[in-house]
């Protein structure tokens, strides 16, 4: 059996290693490992609870707004404010998160994933007047192609015109996502690492000039999503249609829901949200979300076995460097003991199954375009398509929210810091289900736990030996050319992994080969 090791997996957030055992061209076994430990929960202990939203944003500079949201939901719930946030504050938070997520999905497709499908070097032959393409042609002409080469070779299939359009959209997308960030900053002070999302609501206040200015940036985002992003995803999918059959994975999906449409239900698992909470499998039967079913298993992670299967609210992290059979620094989150995938695919499929007419028509028309059934969603291209459709769905919703803002009315409700309390905050971040849990004692953080999207997706095997979601998506895949393993990186990148998030809690040392591993 041959082994393919890819370290680092580039064009994702953070430090990831993928190891695949290959027999007769088929992946028999796959392992994913994060390569960095910063110890956020340890750093948070003993601090003022209100600082959690500033510090946890630094878990990830790509999805910082989502951490700010999960963290403030968590603090709202601990401070007894979950049902008291003024509508202005609730809507501004929705807008900050939504605008952030739309630009993040654009960033993922163009700047992280696209180079797996698009051949930048074809622009060398361009004869036309597009200024961006001509500047890239000049760049190629100078002969120094960093950062576009070296790369895997042999499977760039797009016709020249589609390829060139995608390259020019790569440049355009930089500008569009920057405008998305500008709109977020109008609500939050700046981004990355926002200043105004706070427990109790928002520190920023809405004004008419801001509303109008955000609206027109939103319009540009929406136009880009409709006229560039979605058509490009469909064009790539049309040419690489075999990737509808690749990377099915565990076919269990979990979603926390996102964007509160009301703020009166203190239970986030039952609150009416734009994206539906719940779990769902290939049978497309939606099940209600029950947070008590979440556990983190550690049999194959370097943690004391007696800390396995704990709920995150009582989670413990006791490193066990020498434990045999362990191979990862990520814990394995499980729901009802089973493996679940999180992310835009889960968000869209749960919302689809809830009967939501807008999402039904978006998904059904996309499937009809490819003459495909919902089964095709569980694939590399299904994940890219779901991400693009999720971007459209939330982008379309935001115009109305902007007009619901009421200048002059409060965005924030004052509160007392509790002596002792517990809280939970859940939201579907750009990359999927994100949960923060807190325990407060003597007005200080006694325990803070985050279970982040990429820990679900990139988890190792659990106590019963079942591989994690990405590991399952890789297993069984045929790798056409082991020297250029496009299939592996395309499968992994379709999940949009965020390793800084996933490995904030892991500890150092050891793997099954007895080599001294560093993570």
């Amino acid at each position, binding site marked *: 059996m041959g082994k393919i*090791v890819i*370290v*680092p*997996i580039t*064009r*994702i*957030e*953070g*430090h990831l290693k993928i190891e695949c055992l290959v027999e007769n061209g088929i992946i028999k076994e796959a392992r994913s490992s994060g*390569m960095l*430990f*910063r110890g956020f929960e340890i*750093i948070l202990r003993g*601090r*003022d609870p*209100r*600082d959690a939203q500033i510090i946890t944003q*630094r878990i*990830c*500079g790509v999805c910082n707004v989502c951490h700010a949201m999960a963290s403030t939901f968590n603090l709202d719930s601990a401070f007894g404010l979950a049902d008291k946030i003024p509508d202005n504050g609730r809507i501004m938070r929705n807008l900050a998160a939504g605008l952030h997520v739309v630009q993040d999905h654009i960033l993922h497709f163009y*700047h*992280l994933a696209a180079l797996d499908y698009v051949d930048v070097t074809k622009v060398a032959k361009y004869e036309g007047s597009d200024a961006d393409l001509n500047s890239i042609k000049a*760049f190629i002409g*100078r002969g*120094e192609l*960093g*950062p*576009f*080469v*070296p*790369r*895997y070779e042999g499977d760039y299939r797009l016709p020249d015109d589609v390829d060139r359009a995608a390259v020019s959209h790569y440049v355009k997308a*930089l*500008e569009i996502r*920057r405008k998305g960030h500008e709109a*977020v*900053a*109008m609500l939050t*002070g700046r981004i*990355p*690492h*926002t200043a*105004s999302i*706070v427990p109790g*609501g*928002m*520190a*920023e206040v809405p004004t008419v000039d801001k509303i109008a200015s955000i609206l027109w940036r939103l319009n540009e985002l929406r136009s880009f999503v409709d006229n560039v992003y979605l058509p490009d995803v469909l064009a790539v999918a049309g040419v690489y249609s075999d990737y509808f059959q690749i990377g099915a994975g565990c076919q269990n999906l979990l979603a926390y829901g996102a964007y509160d449409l009301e703020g009166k239900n203190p239970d986030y698992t039952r609150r009416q949200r734009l994206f539906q909470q719940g779990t769902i499998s290939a049978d497309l039967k939606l099940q209600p979300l029950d947070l008590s079913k979440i556990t983190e298993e550690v049999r194959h992670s370097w943690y004391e076995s007696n800390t396995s299967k704990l709920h995150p609210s009582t989670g413990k992290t006791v490193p066990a460097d020498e434990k045999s059979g362990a191979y990862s620094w990520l814990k394995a989150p499980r729901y009802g003991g089973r493996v679940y995938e999180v992310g835009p695919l889960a968000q869209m499929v749960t919302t689809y199954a809830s009967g939501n007419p807008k999402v039904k028509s978006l998904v059904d028309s996309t499937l009809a375009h490819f003459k495909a059934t919902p089964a095709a969603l569980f694939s590399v291209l299904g994940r890219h398509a779901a991400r693009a459709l999720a971007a459209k769905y939330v982008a379309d919703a935001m115009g109305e929210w902007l007009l619901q803002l009421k200048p002059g009315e*409060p*965005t*924030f409700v004052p509160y007392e810091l509790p002596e002792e309390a517990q809280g939970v905050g859940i939201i579907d971040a750009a990359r999927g289900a994100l949960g923060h849990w807190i325990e407060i004692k003597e007005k200080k953080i006694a325990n803070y736990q985050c279970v982040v999207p990429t820990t679900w997706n990139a988890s190792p095997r659990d106590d019963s030996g079942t591989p994690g979601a990405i590991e399952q998506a890789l297993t069984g895949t045929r790798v056409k050319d082991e020297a250029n393993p496009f299939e592996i*990186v395309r499968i992994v990148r379709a999940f949009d992994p965020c390793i*800084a998030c996933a490995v904030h809690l892991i500890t*150092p*040392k050891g793997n099954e080969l007895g*080599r*001294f*591993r*560093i*993570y």
Partner: protein
Amino acid sequence: MDSKTIEYPVIWLQCATCTGCLISILNSVSPTIKNVLIDEVIPGKHVNLRFNATVMAGAGDLAIAIAEETVKKVKGGYLLIVDGSIPTAKNGVYGSIGERNHQPVSMVERVIEFSRDALAVMAVGTCATFGGIPAAAPNPTGCQGLKELLESKGIKTPVINVAGCPPHPDWFVGTVASLLLSGLPSADQLDDFGRPLTFYGKLIHENCQRRAYFDEGKFAKKHGDPGCLYELGCKGPITYADCPTRLWNTGVNWCVGSGGGCHGCTQPEFPDLVSPLYVKTIEIETAPNKL
């Protein structure tokens, strides 16, 4: 024209980072990040980004090889950029970048190896400059800023500190442009912490738009109030950066503008010595509160 272009090779190592620095820099407006990486950002000069794991096409050994080759072939002629803190505890076991002979190579080893022969090292972000949040107490991974690490190893390569959690894109692009235009900064162009005075020369508090409130003793009591944010924990009085005049995200807003207050993100004190962030921890003389 092409034949005259001088290529400036750049290796960008990401250590214990959240990638926020890079995401912030992508927001550069004039020049855009595309102008910086693709075009001649200064006529006749091209920034040639050979290695950056978040944007580069290649992966795995292929990617690592290009960085190692640059270090060997362009000795003394490449710029090393580092973002993220550097985990030094237990010989750097907490973070690695790529492998050599099937063994992971620690971040600290990479940084030292790549720094020695660099023309200069640019620490981008408060993690790389001063340790930042990963180095916050109890600093479980022994994280260090770049300058501290290199000094402890006797490496003399000049270090330029572009602080900020994350830094403003202009601070990064402006520092790169100044390197290309006029070479390494002289000692009087940097402050005591190695930060370019152009960007970090003045206190936030000196230029703050809410300063008039401060002087008149009008202090906000809760979020969303008008007034100076001093009593809500603003760290502007001890923080050096030009945020109040430059503003953030194409000039649409900034931390104090949004009512959240300055958290002192460009400072070596960030985060431990400016915590709790929403509590008045800096004692300065103020007028009696009139709000």
